[in-house]
């Protein structure tokens, strides 16, 4: 057992490191700096910086390390991607705008579209010139995404789209999207779906931001009113949309498994807060109940970290990682919620304050307000537990009362 690179990994790390040093600024010791593009508040400005950085990476073939060279990748291994991510995380560089497109949409397009079509879209996405979004979830189809309503009806060589999508990250700055629609409501729900891609500038597409309970607006509603999509933009066969969506979601899992988001208040922040907070019987850090909680969350965080190391080891040895990687989000999200709430408890009556009136610029309050979303986005805690139970432990799937019933005969709520 050791945590060392193999000689090949070490060589690659050196190359990456040298390139990053020549092209980006190392993170400051405190982590938070005003110049850090990760904390750029103005989205238009942030997007400009991100696109420039993405083009640089793509030029060096670091934008997608595991993609084949003919698609602009490096033709590298998953562990090389991890090494790159580890090194990049030490620098103040933008992130976030291209993950959905490159992680999910483009792999789906290249899988199902013709070579020529794929060639048209791959490079602009890789260079950050075109951004993609994923149009799956609907107001009445969240965890049960196959229950979606948005209709696609054939009209000559076109399909006409009417309906609404929701929780679409980045729709407002996206150029293209992949869209899952219902083409046949007369068959059971999984069988009547078809996937398309379309320009987000198409007539009849309207994007509206959703104001979240946290006050921010990271997601959108997208409305489709008589939007025409040529049949040539169909991905997969008519009625095979569910299978196509599973391909996309499989890529999502790989993309998400690659790195664990470490923003918001965590144990280090809690430790710092406990040191500086005076409770009725002395500093919070000396209080037994506070210490107990810190230890519990620390151990959970470490458990996840070392679980990632196990996954990386498998990748490094060229093996398929075990299912243990599937536990990450269901641990991270509830932990964030509980830890943030506890941090605010330490601040006591003052815990209600946010921003500059609050310790660490309100990090605990921010996490508290963000955590409910994290427990839902990308698979709710409940769905993730179903996935562990079914795919890892091999327990039976739920009995599906809607399996053999035509979609348009299914009972619906309000």
């Amino acid at each position: 057992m050791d945590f060392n690179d193999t000689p090949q990994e070490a060589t690659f790390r050196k190359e990456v490191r040298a390139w990053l040093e020549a092209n980006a600024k190392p993170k400051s010791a405190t982590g938070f700096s005003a110049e850090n593009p990760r904390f750029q508040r103005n989205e238009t400005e942030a997007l400009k910086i991100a696109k420039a950085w993405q083009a640089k990476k793509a030029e060096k073939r670091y934008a997608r390390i595991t993609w084949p060279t003919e698609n602009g990748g490096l033709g590298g291994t998953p562990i090389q991607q991890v090494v790159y991510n580890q090194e990049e995380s030490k620098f103040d560089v933008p992130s976030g705008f291209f993950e959905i497109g490159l992680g999910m949409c483009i792999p789906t397009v290249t899988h199902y579209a013709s070579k020529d079509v794929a060639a048209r879209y791959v490079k602009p996405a890789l260079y950050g010139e075109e951004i993609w979004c994923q149009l799956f979830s609907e107001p009445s189809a969240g965890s049960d995404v196959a229950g979606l309503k948005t209709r696609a009806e054939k009209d000559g060589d076109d399909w006409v789209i009417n309906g609404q999508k929701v929780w679409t990250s980045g729709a407002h700055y996206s150029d293209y999207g992949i869209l899952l629609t219902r083409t046949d409501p007369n068959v059971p729900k999984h069988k009547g779906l078809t996937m398309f891609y379309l320009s987000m500038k198409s007539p009849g597409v309207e994007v509206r931001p959703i104001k979240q309970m946290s006050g921010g607006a990271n997601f959108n509603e997208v409305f489709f009113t008589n939007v025409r999509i040529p049949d040539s933009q169909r991905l997969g066969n008519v009625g095979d949309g569910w299978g196509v969506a599973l391909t996309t979601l499989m890529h999502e899992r790989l993309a998400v498994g690659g790195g664990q988001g470490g923003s918001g208040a965590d144990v280090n922040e809690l430790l710092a807060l406990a040191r500086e907070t005076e409770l009725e019987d002395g500093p919070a850090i000396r209080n037994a109940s506070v210490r107990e909680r810190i230890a519990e969350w620390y151990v959970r965080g470490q458990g996840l970290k070392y679980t990632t190391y196990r996954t990386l080891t498998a990748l490094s040895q060229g093996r398929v990682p075990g299912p243990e990687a599937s536990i990450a989000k269901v641990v991270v999200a509830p932990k964030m919620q509980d830890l943030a709430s506890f941090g605010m408890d330490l601040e006591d009556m003052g815990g209600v304050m946010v921003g500059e009136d609050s310790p660490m610029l309100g990090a605990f309050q921010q996490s508290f307000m963000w955590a409910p979303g994290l427990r839902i986005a990308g698979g709710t805690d409940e769905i993730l537990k179903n996935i562990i139970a079914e795919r890892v432990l091999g327990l039976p799937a739920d009995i599906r009362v809607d399996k053999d019933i035509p979609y348009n005969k299914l009972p619906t709520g309000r």
Partner: protein
Amino acid sequence: MNFDFSDDQKMLKDQARKFLTEKCPTKVVRKILESDEPYDKALWKQIGEMGWLGTAIPEEYGGLGLGHLELCVIAEELGRAAAPVPFSSSVYLATEALLIAGSDAQKKKYLPKLASGEWIGTFAIAEGPQPPSPKTIKATFKGGKLDGTKTPVPDGDVADFAVVLAKSADGAGERSLSLAIVDLKGAGVSRRAVKTIDPSRSQAELSFKGAAADALGPAGDGWDLAKRVLDRAAVLMAFEQVGGADACLVMAKDYALNRYAFGRTIASFQAIKHKLADMYVLNELARSNAYFGAWALSTNAADLAEAAAGARISATDAFHNASKENIQTHGGMGFTWELDCHLYYRRSKVLSLALGASRVWKDRLVNHLEKKNVA
């Protein structure tokens, strides 16, 4: 990154599992639970013959000279089998105490016999129902003589010798304690088995009245040495706990799949699926924390104390959860003497207390974090 056991270590683990599946099915555990036998002597003998007891003992002292990673994989399998043998007392505790604190003469005297299984050793620190500390320990070790009472001492009724933590100086400071090694068959020692929640592992009260004993390590180092021994044992026991937790998950899963209610297997109900998913999550976190402990133990890392605390807290949490929710998954049947669920429920609690409760380890962990943060 090579955060995994080697192929040879995995092979050793497979062999251990095969051996214990054959020689230590739960009816063997039950036999000890239901009788006055303190441990399974035949199984102990075979374990000794296979060399497991001397896994981490250097060859010059009669061991296999492998290492602690090998010991970790064996520990996991012993936990899975809930083996009714004094392995943890003799190997994780007595052997480790001698390895880190013994003089060459002491190592020569004790280690070969520990490796062969001819002698059983144990570690005696508790003095009744409270955490042992420099403030609470009353037993004394002065002028080469031990006086006082230690209870409960795991395997104290069958051990040949014990490493004892006792007062060697006045006051309640950490330097007031020393370790002593005492022959339990010698004069001035009396012992009585105590009843515990898990009779498949025996424990005893040891009373010393002027019993002749040898110092183990320098005088005044007792508390520090005891903590170091406990750190090492915590990593090994974490693997035993992970093995036990895994066994509980497998039992719960098998039962749920084959139990039908309301016209379907109960494994298809989300209430059960989520319960088992939660078990899996805690078990994997525990396994990963235990791996880090294994790395720290096998490399004598500066982070060993922190890694050991993490491994122990996580493994205790996982085994406790798995053992109780396994019973819950079994419903009424889980509460019967006949089913094996209670073997693991008992064992889980015994292991969680054996090296000190989680509360204490959490406090120690935060001590380490505080120090690290300052540095």
